[in-house]
């Protein structure tokens, strides 16, 4: 099994720190810590506190303590399972689509490498919402949906409003997020290892499986996490391309916060979502890193 150059760790010995360097470290770390505290920990704490509260008279939040919100969150788990399935499917599809593309750009593009990177980045300059709306036309009755419907002679054939439309939108929107980490690891990979493997008689597939794949694994992991986590909370694509028929946690949360105005229940569901994602990611990281002989969990 191939090992990378960082495979064998040596416990680093640290020089004793002076007080001044300790103070300096604290000062340097302060901005980031404050940022995390105020913009991450505090809002999270508010959401958790809210999840135990009661609904206000006109909607919103009223102080109180009840576990009813969690009870009702667990009563209807369908949005969670639908989200999990969609997130998995979306991540795997992105992976399958991104790997060949990243491989091509990193190894075969030659002088046009930067051009391809630019082409991948340019769509980000347009609002994501607008691009999603564009898919309404592409997949709609005046576009692909109508074309296929006419071809198979079924006038009520429809792509929009089905899980397929949502998947297409998801892969389109999240593909660059998956391509870039994979591309970066492929770029950095030492190409001579591949040559050596071929010299030693390994075929193309064995080389890929035993040399390339383990090296780019951190990139695959990062890309998957970058896609999976936002995908769990996705709302726009199912609402627009799925016509709201594909009902995910994101849709549920919007419904509760913006229409039913039942913030405590929405908060409870949000907390459940966060817990599900935490568990999934921890499990995924453990699974992906258990083959590596390092103590460090690498996320690029």
């Amino acid at each position, binding site marked *: 099994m191939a090992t990378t150059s960082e495979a064998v760790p040596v416990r680093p010995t640290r020089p004793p720190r002076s007080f001044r360097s300790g103070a300096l470290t604290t000062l340097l770390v302060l901005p980031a810590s404050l940022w995390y505290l105020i913009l991450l920990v505090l809002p999270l704490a508010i959401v958790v506190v809210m999840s135990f509260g009661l609904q206000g008279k006109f909607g919103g939040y009223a102080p109180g303590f009840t576990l009813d919100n969690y009870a009702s969150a667990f009563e209807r788990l369908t949005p969670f399972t639908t989200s999990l399935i969609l997130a998995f499917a979306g991540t795997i599809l992105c992976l399958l689509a991104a790997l060949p593309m990243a491989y091509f750009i990193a190894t075969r593009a030659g002088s046009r490498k930067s051009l391809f990177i630019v082409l991948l980045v340019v769509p980000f300059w347009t609002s994501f919402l607008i691009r999603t709306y564009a898919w309404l036309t592409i997949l*709609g009755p005046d576009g692909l949906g109508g074309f296929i419907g006419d071809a198979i002679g079924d006038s009520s054939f429809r792509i929009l*409003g089905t899980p397929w439309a949502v998947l297409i939108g998801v892969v389109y929107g999240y593909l660059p997020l998956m391509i870039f980490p994979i591309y970066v690891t492929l770029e950095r990979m030492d190409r001579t290892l591949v040559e050596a493997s071929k010299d030693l008689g390994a075929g193309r597939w064995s080389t890929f499986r035993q040399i390339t794949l383990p090296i780019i694994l951190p990139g695959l992991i990062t890309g998957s996490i970058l896609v999976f986590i936002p995908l769990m909370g996705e709302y726009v694509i199912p609402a627009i391309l799925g016509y709201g028929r594909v009902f995910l946690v994101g*849709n549920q949360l919007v419904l509760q916060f913006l229409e039913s*105005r039942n913030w405590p229940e929405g908060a409870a569901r949000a907390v459940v979502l966060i817990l599900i994602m935490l568990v999934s990611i921890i499990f995924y990281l453990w699974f992906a890193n258990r083959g590596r002989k390092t103590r460090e969990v690498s996320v690029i």
Partner: protein
Amino acid sequence: MTDQDLDQTIRRMAQTPLSRRGFLWASGLSASAAFLAACGPGASSSASTAPSAAAPSTEGSEAPSASPSAEAVVVEKELLMYNWGDYVDPDNMKAFQEQFGVEKFTYDTFASNDEMMAKFQGGAKGQWDISAPTANFVPAMRDQGFIQKLDLPHVPNASLIDSAFKKQWWDPTDEWQLPKDWGTTGITLRTKVVKEDVKTWKQFFELAPKYTGKIVVVDSPDDVFVAPLKALGYSLNSADPKELEEARGLLMGLAPHVLALDSDQYNTKIATEEAVMGLTWTGGILELRDDPKTADTVYLIPEDGTVFWMDTWVVLADAPHPNAANAFLNFILTPEVQAKETMTNQYATCSSAAKAFIDPKMLADPAIFVPDDVLAKLEGQKDNSGIKQRAEIYEEFKSKIGQG
């Protein structure tokens, strides 16, 4: 470019000092990119500031009380509106901007009253000047301090509102809102496909399985509850748990057959036949009747009853541009402008003075200007936002759309 070439290029670039020309060129490029991004289509569409020829009926109109009486008032250069989608005629918006020198007119949208209320409850004070909630939401907005009393001396055209729309339960003193328009919620059909003689909400529910996947419903809890409650013969404002449970049964039976809940684009879906049956308003539907391709479209007021709703203009608390808001209210109530609003939005006006300028064909259309005898049988909308059971049923309805 091989790895070594890339390496060398980067090394060379790192060693060359950045010249002033290079810096200016790079910042110019980033600045223009940022400028383009900011000017690009965003969530709020700002009406173009370049004045173009407005419709002749509104340009430079010196209609009665065209400008506010107090001349000392300086109209601000900006107006921020939070409204339903496509609810003000763009030509009227441009004419207003020209007439009062309002350079920036921001039009943000919401899809339902509940969404609007949630925005305000989340703390959106001072973010907009004017909004157009449905009348039954006005008391709640007033009680929670989201709106301010109208500055009526600066809106003299308010006197043009018909007395039939004044002193209503939602605003007995007429100090908090101005009627915008009124309408009904009914059944829209493409009779080319739906051959049955549909006349009631009851039939609507019964036919749902036959036209599964081709039914569109507006995304508004108040309107959605009208259908099952009226089909069962109850008041559409019912808070009775038993009646609401029966309504839930009908709604859950409907949910799997619904194509989408859509308050903005239901007319497009009807036009392309993606949907052939709908629980909708009249906006966008009536013009389909005039188009030969979709002339089979029909909007009907169900015989088992439906809702009579009214939308109102309110000035928001802490409005940053109150003078512009008053100028707009006064402007929109001038008869010619009102008439254009009615003809574009296809909802009935609350000001008879405007009827003189409305196309007689539209005046005679019973779907917009509902005849008095039918009007008498319609039920007004109450403030149902506090009934938790309704919210819970609607949530479940929305989550089951198109499934199973």
